[in-house]
């Protein structure tokens, strides 16, 4: 009598789930095999809610070893009378039970180690220590940015890492002619612009970083630096304002500068005009390249036109918000945020042969005719390459 009894809840230990009244046949078979478990009546506390009847029931089999018949009879007999008349089950005791307390600390530690190994690989301790050091550096501001606000660490660790799967898995970018990018020194990459949202710029950045091992420093429109958050990200990612001063400064500093001379005319053109190059601005990029004597690398991007096919525009709303256009694509306002997912077109990036600008004499950058000629030459090169790539392409998505 000394031990406290634990009253089980639930099915009260009856075999099977059933309705709670009639054990299932399978359960009966099982029960029959073993027979009702015998136990001394003393184990039951007399004062519990189930009155005295079950106690008597349990006493009966106690008298002798139970046979199958009696067990059957007992169950049949009791089934009709009351819920409480169940075949008794052994009362669990505290000393029978496993030690409580949830998951042991050692197991937790092991799980953590396994998880860390999953995330960081075999050298997870080193990786974790490194990551912690990185976090501390970010939190204490102990990192360097260049004069344009370019944060190399964050660009490499986060921006590139986030864009890489999109470039490789979603757009399956194929890069050609990467050897045309000089391994060091200033150069100006000039590309066509398309796709409603300047995703092509980001993809060019990540492709050049992964294939040529250099950071592309894009020149962004005024609007980019006017917008909150976007402007911060752009500066951190290495962009600067598309103006002659900055372009020349970067090129003199030996950076690889990217420029999209079509601007909003390029990305905001309707789908029907895809792969038709727009006007190349005033040729400011050519005069910047001539002044600094760096080569111009033409880049043709195929595939970006199809990611958000622009079929309409809301000019009045765009004017109200001060943006160049409000795009309507087959999916965008229709599917809501889901429409922001770009179509998975197959992309081809081909860098053309560099166009040298260091042969021109001193005042060439101020000669508008020469600047227009070079601009047209670059434009034609990109356009012709676009046509060639389009011919080669099997389909938009393959």
């Amino acid at each position, binding site marked *: 009598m000394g031990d406290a009894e634990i009253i089980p809840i639930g099915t009260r230990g009856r075999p099977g789930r059933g309705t709670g009244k009639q054990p299932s046949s399978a359960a009966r078979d099982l029960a029959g095999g073993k027979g009702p478990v015998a136990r001394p009546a003393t184990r039951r506390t007399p004062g519990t809610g189930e009155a005295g009847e079950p106690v008597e029931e349990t006493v009966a089999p106690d008298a002798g070893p139970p046979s199958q018949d009696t067990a059957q009879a007992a169950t049949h007999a009791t089934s009709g009378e009351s819920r409480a008349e169940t075949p008794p089950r052994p009362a669990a005791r505290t000393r029978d039970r496993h030690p409580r307390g949830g998951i042991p600390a050692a197991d937790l530690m092991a799980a953590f180690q396994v998880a860390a190994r999953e995330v960081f690989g075999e050298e997870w301790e080193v990786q974790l*220590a490194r990551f912690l050091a990185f976090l*501390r*550096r970010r*939190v204490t501001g*102990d*990192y360097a*940015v260049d004069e344009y606000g370019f944060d190399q660490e964050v660009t490499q660790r986060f921006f590139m890492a986030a864009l890489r799967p999109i470039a490789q898995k979603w757009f399956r970018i194929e890069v050609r002619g990467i050897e045309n990018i000089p391994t060091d020194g200033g150069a100006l990459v000039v590309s066509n612009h398309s796709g409603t949202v300047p995703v092509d710029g980001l993809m060019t950045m990540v492709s050049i970083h992964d294939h040529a091992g250099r950071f592309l420093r894009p020149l962004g429109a005024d609007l980019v630096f006017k917008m909150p958050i976007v402007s911060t990200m752009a500066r951190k990612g290495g962009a600067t304002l598309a103006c002659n001063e*900055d372009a020349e*400064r970067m090129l003199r500093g030996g950076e690889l500068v990217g420029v999209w001379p079509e601007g909003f005319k390029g990305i905001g053109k309707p789908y029907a005009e895809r792969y038709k190059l727009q006007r190349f601005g005033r040729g400011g990029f050519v005069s910047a390249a001539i002044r600094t004597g760096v080569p111009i690398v033409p880049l043709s991007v195929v595939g970006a036109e199809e990611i958000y096919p622009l079929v309409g525009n809301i000019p009045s709303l765009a004017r109200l918000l001060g943006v160049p256009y409000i795009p309507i694509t087959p999916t965008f306002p229709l599917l809501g945020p889901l429409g922001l997912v770009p179509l998975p077109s197959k992309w081809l990036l081909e860098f053309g042969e560099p166009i040298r600008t260091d042969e021109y004499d001193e005042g060439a950058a101020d000669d508008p005719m020469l600047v227009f000629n070079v601009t047209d030459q670059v434009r034609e090169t990109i356009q012709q390459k676009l046509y060639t790539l389009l011919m080669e392409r099997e389909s938009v998505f393959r």
Partner: protein
Amino acid sequence: MGKVVLVTGVSRDLGRKFARTLAADPEVDRVIGVDVVPPRGDIGAVSFVRADIRNPVIAKVIAKEDVDTVVHMSVIATPGTAGGRNTMKELNVIGTMQLLAACQRAASLQHLVVKSTTTVYGASSRDPAMFTEDMQPRRAPRSGYAKDVAEIEGYVRGFARRRPDVRVTTLRCANVLGPAVVSPLTSYLRLPVVPTVLGYDARLQVLHERDLYGVLQHAVRADVAGTFNVAGDGILMLSQALRRLQRPTVSMPGFAVGRVGNLLRQARVADFSPEQLGFLTYGRGVDTTRMRAELGFEPTMTTAETFADFATTLTPTGGRTERVLAGLAQALPEVEGPAPAPLDAAGDAQPAPRRPRAVAAAREGADHG
């Protein structure tokens, strides 16, 4: 014969300290400090003349003392102590006009040094990354300090045309920062919780107080005329600078920051100027090639070092996350401890990860010491 230098604006800290530094220079015979109110601190060997540069008395001072060099430092950035925007404008613009008029009459004058500011370039989203001396602000300033300075520079250019025999040196100094400096920027950075503009991160470039004295002294001694940007090397982002100063920040939209700034100014907590909002949103960088090449001046402190020096006098109000991370790094010695060899090997393979370890080690050493 040594120089006789007249320094305007000595009642304020920067002017007073510069005048004292200059008085200790062996090349300089006499330093005469001029201001409307007497300086509040020790001015050493400087002789103070109480005169208002807004009236013609200043011409008599220059003539009587046989001044050959004038250092004009009394351009104030905020009306805070002067008593209102009108007084500020009068002090800045009319004061400069009178001073230049007096200088034009003074036959003995050989050299004029004007302490201007990079605020003349303004701050906007359409700015180039680094301003050179030849660039104009994208938008002409319409009010406040920036407009005053733009007008003052215009008068100085006019003076230089009329007196081609006088060497005129205009120093466009970046925001001055130092442990003892009181300015709109320092009072902003000294706030216990710093409001920042949501979604923007300004690029900051500052000049250490000592370098300001250094460059002014250099300009007094050197035989160089022209306009020069003066600033410490390198750029810090505002967020980065605030992390280094261990200040907690609150991001809010631009107009709200302006309103908070106005409130703080009215409550006399911080001297917040309206031009500052643009600066704290977009920031500004200046190209200092000409300072090195032509003026021949080399600042002793970079922007980052200046901020570090400024931080020594500041009680950190934040930095909780950093302490947690530092504790974590210390509480997990097993993590960092048993694997030094592979880390070093990895560090050899790619040079980038070496730095964090050295930094972490240095910081831990500092903590224990």
